[in-house]
C-alpha cells in the first residue's frame, strides 16, 4: 500500500505534446479514476507511473520515494491491461505464479525446472500455491488453474489478470481500461467485483477509463483529463454537481448536460437565445457566457406562460424516467429534460411546451475560457 504523487509530468511523442505539467496526488488506499476521451493522455500517465514510458519532465513518487530512476519491475506496482496480457504459453496457475517466482526465487531456481525440486525452492513453491489458491478462490477461478489463456472466456481472462496482480501484494494497482473488452452485461458484474476487491484489499487503485459511468460508480475521486491536462479532481458528486470547467460538465453525466449560449448584465438579467430573461442570480461577471443545467435541474411548463418555448423533437423512454428532447429556436442542440413517467406520458412529438429554468441550479461558464463562474451562493456551498 502506498500513496502516489505525480508532479509536473510532461510528455511528448515526436513533438506532439500528450501530457502538460500534470500533477496528481493519489492517497494511500484510494480508488482514483483517470477519465477522459481517448487520446487525452490518461493511459500515457498510467504507463509513466508504471515505468513503461519515460516522462520528458517531472517526477513520480510511490510511497513517498522517487522512482524516476527505477525500472518497472522495481516500482512494485501491478498493472492490469486492456488486453489482459496473460502469458499465452503458461497455464493460469503459472501465470499467477510468475510474479511470485520472479520476485522470490533465484535466477537458478527460476531457470531450471529441476531446481524447483530442491527443498528451499519447494518450501517457497508451497507458499506460492497457498497464495495462488486463496486468490483463485476469491476470484472464482480455482477450477481453471490448469487451463491455458486461449481456453478461457474474456471474463475469465480478466479475472486471471486481476489474480496475477493480486497475488504479489503490490503497492498499487494500475488498471488500463480493464473492462472495455467485455460485453455490457459482464462489464457491470466485473465493475461491482473490482469495487468490492478494492474495499477488501484496501489498496491504492488507479483506474483509467474513457467511460464516465465507470468512473462515477467506482471511484473515491475522479480526475478528468483532457488534452493532456487535469481539468478537475474531486469526488464523483463534486465533479457532477460542481464542475470547474465546461468540458468537465459536458463529459460527466448521461444524458449530457444542456448548454445554452447567452449574455448577462450586471443586474442579473440574462439574454438567452435572443430573449430577455429574469435570472435570480448575482452574476459573477457580465458579458457572454455559457449557461448549463442538468436534465433533471429544469422542467417543462405550459407554453403560454414560459419565456422560452420549444417543440418536442424526440422522446426517449427509459422505463423509470422519460427524456424529452426539446428543440429551441436559435439553439443547435436540443435541450434534454428528464421527467417522471407520470408527467411525461401525455407528451407527444411536436407539442409546443415551455422551458422552466431553476436559476439556483444554473451553472455559468466563461464563454472563451470555459472556466466556471460561480455565483456568490455557489461559492459559499462549494467552500
Amino acid at each position: 500500500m502506498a500513496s502516489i504523487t505525480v508532479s509536473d509530468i510532461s510528455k511528448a511523442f515526436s513533438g506532439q505534446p500528450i501530457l502538460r505539467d500534470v500533477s496528481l496526488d493519489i492517497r494511500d488506499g484510494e480508488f482514483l479514476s483517470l477519465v477522459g476521451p481517448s487520446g487525452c493522455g490518461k493511459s500515457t500517465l498510467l504507463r509513466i507511473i508504471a515505468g513503461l514510458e519515460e516522462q520528458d519532465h517531472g517526477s513520480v513518487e510511490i510511497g513517498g520515494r522517487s522512482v524516476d530512476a527505477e525500472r518497472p519491475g522495481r516500482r512494485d506496482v501491478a498493472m492490469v491491461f486492456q488486453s489482459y496480457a496473460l502469458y499465452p504459453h503458461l497455464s493460469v496457475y503459472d501465470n499467477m505464479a510468475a510474479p511470485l517466482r520472479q520476485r522470490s526465487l533465484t535466477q537458478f531456481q527460476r531457470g531450471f525446472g529441476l531446481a524447483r525440486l530442491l527443498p528451499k525452492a519447494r518450501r517457497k513453491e508451497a507458499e506460492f500455491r497457498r497464495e495462488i489458491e486463496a486468490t483463485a478462490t476469491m476470484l472464482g477461478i480455482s477450477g481453471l488453474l490448469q487451463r491455458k489463456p486461449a481456453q478461457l472466456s474474456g471474463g475469465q481472462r480478466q479475472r486471471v489478470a486481476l489474480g496475477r496482480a493480486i497475488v504479489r501484494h503490490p503497492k498499487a494497482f494500475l488498471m488500463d481500461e480493464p473492462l472495455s473488452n467485455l460485453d455490457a452485461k459482464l462489464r457491470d458484474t466485473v465493475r461491482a467485483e473490482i469495487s468490492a476487491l478494492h474495499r477488501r484489499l484496501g489498496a491504492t487503485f488507479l483506474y483509467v477509463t474513457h467511460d464516465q459511468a465507470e468512473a462515477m460508480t467506482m471511484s473515491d475521486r475522479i480526475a478528468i483529463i483532457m488534452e493532456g491536462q487535469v481539468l478537475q479532481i474531486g469526488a464523483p458528486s463534486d465533479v457532477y454537481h460542481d464542475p470547474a470547467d465546461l468540458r468537465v460538465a459536458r463529459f460527466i453525466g448521461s444524458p449530457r448536460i444542456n448548454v445554452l449560449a447567452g449574455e448577462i448584465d450586471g443586474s442579473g438579467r440574462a439574454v438567452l437565445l435572443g430573449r430577455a430573461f429574469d435570472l435570480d442570480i448575482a452574476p459573477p461577471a457580465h458579458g457572454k457566457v455559457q449557461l448549463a443545467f442538468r436534465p433533471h435541474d429544469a422542467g417543462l411548463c405550459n407554453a403560454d406562460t414560459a419565456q422560452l418555448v420549444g417543440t418536442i423533437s424526440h422522446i426517449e423512454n427509459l422505463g423509470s424516467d422519460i427524456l424529452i428532447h426539446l428543440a429551441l429556436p436559435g439553439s443547435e442542440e436540443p435541450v434534454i429534460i428528464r421527467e417522471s413517467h407520470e408527467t411525461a406520458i401525455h407528451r407527444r412529438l411536436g407539442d409546443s411546451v415551455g422551458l422552466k429554468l431553476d436559476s439556483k441550479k444554473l451553472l455559468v461558464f466563461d464563454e472563451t475560457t470555459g472556466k466556471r463562474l460561480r455565483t456568490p451562493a455557489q461559492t459559499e456551498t462549494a467552500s
Partner: protein
Amino acid sequence: MRGRRLSSIIASVTAHAVLMAGAVIMLTPFLWMELTSLKPPQEIFRLGLHILPREWGGAENYGRVFSDTPMLRFLLNGIVVCGAIVILQILIAVPAAYALAKIPFRGRGLFFALILVSLLVPIQVPSLFLYLGFARAGLLDSYASLVLPFIISAFAIFLLRQHFLQFPQEVVEAARLDKFGEFEIAWRIVLPSARPAIGAFAVFSMVAHWNDLYWPLVVVTDPEMATPPLGVVFFRNQESGSDFGALMAAATVISAPLIIAFLAAQKTFVRGLTSIR
C-alpha cells in the same frame, strides 16, 4: 449448381496435376540416385533405359561405402558441425531479434538495414579473409573453422524478428512489471510462441550446412575432419573414380539422415513456414 461443381472438380484436378508434375520433377533425380546405388557397375553403363536393376549390386555398393571410407566419421562430423552451427545461430539470433523487435534504441533501423544487406552477401565474398584468419590462428582442419563463420545468421535474426514483432507488446510490458529481465522475456516469454519458426529455421540451416561443400573444401584437407559431402568428394578422388554405384550409395547414405529428420518433423516444419508473414 452442377456446372459449378464440375468446374471446381476440374480446377482441383488441374491443380493436383501441376503439383504432381512438380513433385515428379523434384523426386526423379533422388529416385535415380537410389536405383543407381542398387545396380552393379556393368549395368549402370549399359545402353538403353531400364529403370529397375536386373541384378542387385546394392550390398556390394553400400559395403564399399562403409569399408573403404570412414563414412561413420563423416556422418558424426556432419552432426557435430551442423548441430553446433544451428544451436549457436539460435543462441545469438534470439536475443538479437528480440532487441530489434521489442526494445527501442538509437540506431535500431540502421542495424536492421545492415542485417538485411548482409543477407545479400554470400559466403564466397568474405571467404578469402576468413581462410587467412583461420590459417593464421592455426584453426584449419578443425570444427571451429567449420562452425564459426556461420554462427551469426542474418536470416535467423530477420525471420525471428518478424515473428517477435507480432508478439503483443502488452505481454512484454506485463513481464517487465512482473520483474522479468529482458533476456528472460526473450527466452521464456516471447520465444515459446515462435517455436514453429525456430523449427523451420533449424531445418533450413541444417540442410544448408549438411549439404555445404564449398566451405569445408576451403578449410578442411584432413579426411578425419571431413563433413559428409566432402567425404564423398574424397571417396571419389581416392577410391572410385568411376564407380558410380558406390558413389550413389554414398550420396544416399549422406542424404538419408536429412530425409528421416524431415519426415519426423514434417508437421512442425510446414507450420513454421506457413506462419511466416
